[in-house]
């Protein structure tokens, strides 16, 4: 977990390689068998030209980065807003990065406002968004 929560602090990135096997595992775990994710012959005939990863799989990696930085504060009281820009495909290596944009005080409670992005190995933006995490009173943080 982060020990210094301050504006501009970069979160430890998460790097994950997407494979069809992982997508299939995710489909089994989530119950989402939309053919665009798991049926290669179907997906090839669509405008997307092949299978794509579930959007929620990409967000699982974002959540991993946030959990690593903020622990249970994220798991219990996090907020997220994400926009899916491009699909992640089998063979892609995704890098999820983020930083604390600011630390806000509201009603005697501090919140870390973070931005994040997920890019593939070509630098294409796959997902972008913002998160908000309520901070514990005993956590060290600085608004600057």
């Amino acid at each position, binding site marked *: 977990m982060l020990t210094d929560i301050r504006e501009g602090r970069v979160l430890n990135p998460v790097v*994950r390689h997407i494979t069809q096997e*992982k997508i299939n*595992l*995710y489909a*089994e*775990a*989530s*119950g*989402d*068998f*939309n053919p*665009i994710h798991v049926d290669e012959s179907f*997906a090839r*005939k*669509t*405008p*997307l030209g092949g299978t794509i990863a*579930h*959007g*929620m*799989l990409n*967000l*699982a*990696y974002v*959540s*991993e980065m946030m*959990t690593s930085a903020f622990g*249970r504060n*994220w*798991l*219990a*009281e*996090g*907020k*997220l*807003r*994400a*926009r*899916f820009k491009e699909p992640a495909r089998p063979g892609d290596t995704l890098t999820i990065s983020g930083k604390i944009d600011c630390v806000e005080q509201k009603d005697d409670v501090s919140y870390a406002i973070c931005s994040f992005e997920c890019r593939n190995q070509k630098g294409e933006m796959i997902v972008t968004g913002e998160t908000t995490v309520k901070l514990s009173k005993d956590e060290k943080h600085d608004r600057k």
Partner: protein
Amino acid sequence: MYYYIVYRCIKNNQMSVKAVSCDELIAGYEFPRATYELTALLVSKYLKAVDGAGDGFVPPMAITACAIAAITKSFSPPAGTVVIHASQELEFFKLVPIGATIECHARVAQKITRGRMSMLILELEIVDQSKEKVQSGRATIALPS
């Protein structure tokens, strides 16, 4: 043209199926509730799929995934077309222990049709067995109209 959402509700290993036409997916439409038991096996499968490490609680994105899948898994758009998850907003309210049972509620907040595409804005609310709110959120889904 009609196509159908087949909504699957799983509870105590029993499954019921209800089909609704796409035309019924208008603002205010409420999907049938879906109930999931978040077993250690389900969480273990999820963690394996996302390369995640467990910490005794259900990952919040696993809970969201159940809710999203319950709504979208049986969309049957016209051949050669796809349903796209365009955006997602989420808020978590509490830690959920492994073994808990959750109930997913979803409704169509808005439907915008432009040309051959429709955007559905879905509101989600997930509660635990004590009816305490676990998560809420909004998903935007694009589908052919």
